[in-house]
C-alpha cells in the first residue's frame, strides 16, 4: 500500500473521531418502561404497543417520555411519573401546538433527523384560522394531533398516513363535513361531498396523480385559511398557468374586480370543479356566461359564437374519426392520418384554453388550425376508402383476366389431347 493511501485512511479515521458535538445521538430504541403498564390500559390512557411501534417517532428512537415527560428508565410508577423527572402526563389540547413545536420548530435539532423537513409549522399555524381561534380560547378547532394523529403518526409519504395526498380530503372532512360539529362556525359542510364530484378528486384517486389538488393545495396546510377573493386566481394559477395569463389579459379581469367577485371559481366553482364542457359557453341552461350577460349584450353574442365554433371543430374531428375508422376496418393503412388527427385534438384543447382570453380573434386562430387539419385527415380517409374500392375493382378485373386465361388453357389442352393418336406415349 502506498504512503499516500495510508495517509488518506488515517485522515479519514481521524475525522470520524473528531466529529463536532461528539458522537451522534443513538438511534436504538431507549428503555421505555411506560408501555409496560400503559400497553395494558384501555384508551385514552392506554396505548397499544403495535400502534406506537409504527409511529415515525418511535422508529427514530423517541419514547413516551419525549412528549409526556417522566423517566422511562425507572421501574416504579412513583419514580417514573414523578414531577421531579419532568412528567407532564396528559397534554391539554391548547398546549399541543407548543409541545410539538419544541422539536419541530428547532431547526438545529430537526436537522439530525431530516434536514429537508420544514420547521415553520407553528408560526404558520398561528396565521391560520385554526391557530387564531385556538389563541382566543376555542379548543374545538384542529390542532396538530387532529390531522397528524397521535401515537401512530406516519410520515406523509406513507399511503396509510392521514396526511398522504390520497387521504387529506378525508382527514379534513372528519370535522368540516360534520354539520353538527361545525354548526357554531356558520360555514358550509358540503365541501367534501362537492370535492368528490370534482375532476381534481378523480385525477388524484382514480388516476393516481398525486400532484392533483386536494384541500391543502388551495387552503394551505398548517396555515390553512379560505383564499380571499383576490387570492383565488393566484391559487389556481399555480397549475393552470396559461388560463391565468390569458384571463389577466381579458376584459373579464377588470370587470370581475369591479364586481368584487373572485376569478376562476365564479365560472368553474370551487370545490365541485367538474370537467369543463362547451356547454358552459353559449346561452344554454348550463351556461356560465349568462350569470352576467343577457341577450343583446356583446358578451352574450360572443359566448354563443364561442360555443358554436368549438362545436364546429369538435364535429369536424368526429367526422374525420368516423371516416378513418371505416378505412381501418377495411384494412387500409391510415396511421399517418391518425397521428395528424391527434394534432387536431391538440388544437381543440388549445382553443379551449384560449377561451380564457375571451377574444374571438385569438380563439379563431386555434380553431382554424384545427379545422384545417381535420379537413385534411377527412380527405385522407376518403382517399383511403376510394383506394379500397379501386383495389376491389382491380382484383375483380385481375381475377377475370386469370379466369379467361384458365379457360383458354383448358380449351387448348383439350384441343391437343383430342387429336387422333395424341395424348398417349
Amino acid at each position, binding site marked *: 500500500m502506498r504512503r499516500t493511501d495510508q495517509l488518506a485512511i488515517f485522515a479519514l479515521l481521524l475525522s470520524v473521531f473528531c466529529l463536532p458535538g461528539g458522537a451522534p445521538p443513538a438511534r436504538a430504541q431507549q428503555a421505555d418502561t411506560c408501555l409496560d403498564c400503559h400497553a395494558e390500559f384501555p384508551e385514552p390512557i392506554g396505548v397499544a404497543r403495535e400502534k406506537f411501534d409504527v409511529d415515525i417517532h418511535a422508529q427514530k428512537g423517541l419514547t413516551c417520555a419525549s412528549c409526556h415527560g417522566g423517566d422511562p428508565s425507572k421501574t416504579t410508577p412513583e419514580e417514573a411519573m414523578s414531577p421531579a423527572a419532568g412528567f407532564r402526563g396528559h397534554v391539554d389540547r391548547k398546549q399541543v401546538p407548543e409541545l410539538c413545536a419544541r422539536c419541530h420548530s428547532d431547526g438545529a435539532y430537526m436537522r439530525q433527523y431530516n434536514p429537508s423537513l420544514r420547521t415553520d409549522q407553528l408560526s404558520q399555524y398561528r396565521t391560520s384560522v385554526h391557530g387564531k381561534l385556538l389563541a382566543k380560547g376555542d379548543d374545538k378547532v384542529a390542532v396538530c394531533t387532529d390531522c397528524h394523529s397521535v401515537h401512530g403518526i406516519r410520515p406523509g409519504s406513507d399511503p396509510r398516513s392521514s396526511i398522504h395526498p390520497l387521504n387529506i380530503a378525508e382527514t379534513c372532512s372528519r370535522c368540516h363535513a360534520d354539520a353538527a360539529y361545525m354548526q357554531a362556525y356558520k360555514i358550509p359542510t358540503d365541501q367534501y361531498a362537492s370535492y368528490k364530484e370534482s375532476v381534481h378528486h378523480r385525477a388524484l384517486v382514480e388516476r393516481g396523480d398525486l400532484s392533483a389538488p386536494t384541500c391543502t393545495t388551495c387552503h394551505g396546510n398548517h396555515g390553512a385559511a379560505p383564499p380571499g377573493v383576490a387570492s383565488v386566481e393566484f391559487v389556481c394559477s399555480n397549475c393552470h398557468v396559461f388560463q391565468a395569463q390569458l384571463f389577466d389579459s381579458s376584459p373579464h379581469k377588470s370587470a370581475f374586480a369591479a364586481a368584487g367577485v373572485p376569478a376562476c371559481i365564479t365560472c368553474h366553482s370551487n370545490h365541485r370543479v367538474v370537467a369543463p364542457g362547451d356547454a358552459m359557453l353559449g346561452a344554454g341552461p348550463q351556461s356560465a356566461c349568462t350569470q352576467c350577460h343577457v341577450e343583446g349584450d356583446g358578451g352574450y353574442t360572443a359566448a354563443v359564437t364561442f360555443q358554436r365554433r368549438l362545436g364546429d371543430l369538435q364535429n369536424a374531428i368526429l367526422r374525420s374519426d368516423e371516416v378513418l375508422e371505416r378505412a381501418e376496418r377495411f384494412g387500409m*393503412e391510415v396511421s399517418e392520418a391518425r397521428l395528424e388527427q391527434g394534432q387536431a385534438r391538440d388544437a381543440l384543447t388549445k382553443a379551449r384554453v384560449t377561451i380564457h382570453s375571451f377574444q374571438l380573434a385569438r380563439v379563431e386562430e386555434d380553431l382554424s388550425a384545427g379545422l384545417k387539419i381535420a379537413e385534411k385527415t377527412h380527405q385522407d380517409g376518403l382517399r383511403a376508402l376510394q383506394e379500397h374500392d379501386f*383495389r376491389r375493382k382491380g382484383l375483380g378485373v*385481375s381475377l377475370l383476366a*386469370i*379466369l379467361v386465361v384458365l379457360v383458354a*388453357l383448358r380449351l387448348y*389442352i383439350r384441343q391437343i*389431347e383430342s387429336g387422333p393418336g395424341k*395424348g398417349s*406415349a
Partner: protein
Amino acid sequence: MKNLVTRAYEWLDERLDLQDLMAPLRHKTVPVHYYSYWYYLGGITLFLFLVQVFTGILLLLYYRPSANEAFESVQFIMTRVQFGWLIRSIHSWAANLMIFFAFAHMFSVLFLRSYRKPRELTWVSGMVLLVLAMGFGFSGYLLPWNTLAFFATKVGTDIVRQVPVVGHWLMVFLRGGEDVTGATLSRFFGLHVAVLPGITTLLLAIHLALIQRQGISVPGGMEGAMHALKYLRKHDPAAAELWLKQAGAQAERREMPFFPNFFLRELMAWYVALGVLGALAALAPWELGTKADAFAPAPAGIRPEWYFLWMFQTLKLIPAKLGPLDGEMVGVLAFSVAGGLWLLLPFFDRGEGRGSRWILGAGIFALVYMTAMSVYGYLAS
C-alpha cells in the same frame, strides 16, 4: 411472324442443337391415376418461390434494413409506393402459402410412398428445402421490425440457446450479440436476401434435376399394371391390344406427355395460385403492426408463426425439469432427433413389409400431432 420465329429457332438450333437439348423434355411422361392431382403441389410451391423472388426484389427497392428505418420504410411501402401494398401483401401471403404447400407436398410424397428407392436424395433435398423455407419465414418475419416480430424473434432465438454445447454460440451468432438489436436485423436481412436464396436455388436445381432424371413416382398398386402394359407392348403387341380392349380407355391414358400436356395443366394451377394470392392481398392485406420498442413490456400472447407453433406449444407443455435434465433442452434435443429420423426416412423402407407400415403410421402420427398442437397453441394464446 411465324416465319421469323421459325428462322430464329433454326438459327439457334444450328448452333446450340436445341433439338437434342429439348429431347429429354419431349419424351418425359407423367403418370395419370386417381392421385395425379397431388403432383401439382410441388409445382405450386416452386411457383410461390418464384413469386417470392420477384416481389422480394421489388421490395428491396424501398426497404431499409436498420432498426431506426426498417419500420418506417415498410410503412412507406404500404402507404406511399404505388401498388406497394400489393407487392408487400403478396410477398407475405406467398411466404405463408409456400410453406403450407411445401408441407402438403412433403406429406403427399410420404403417403404416396414416392420417397422410395431410387428417390432417397429427392426426399433429402426436399426436406432441406423445407427447412430453408422455414428459415426464410423466421428471418423475414423480423424485417418489418414491429412489436410482435421483435418479441417473437426474441423467444425463438432464446429457444435456440437451449441446444447443448453450441446453443449459446448459435444464439449470439443469430442475434449478432446477446440481445435482439439492430445487429440482429442486419443479420436476418443478409440471411433473408442473400444466403438463403443462394442455397435454396442450388438445392432447388438439384431437386428438380433429380425429378427430371428419375421420373415421377407412381403409387405401388398401379405401378405393376403400367409395367406389365409396357412389357406386353414390346414383346407381344397382340396381347397388349387384347388387354386394352378389355381394360377400356382407363389403361390407355396411364401416362401423359410432360410437355405440353402436363406443363399446361401445371400452368393452370399456377394461374389459380396467382388468383388466390391477388385475392388474399386485396381482401386481407398483411397488417403492419406497431414499431418495436425494446424497452416496452412484451405484449400478451407472444407466439411464433404458425409453422413453428406446434414446436413452441410442445416446449411450453414440457415441465421445467425432467429429472436432472432441463425440460426445454430435452424438448429441443427430441425435435432434433425426430427431424434427423424424418430426414433419413427413405432409408428405413425396405419395400413392402413392416418398415413401410411403420413409416405410414409415423406419417399419420406426425400430421395429426402437428395439426392438433398448432390448434391447441392458437386456442391457448
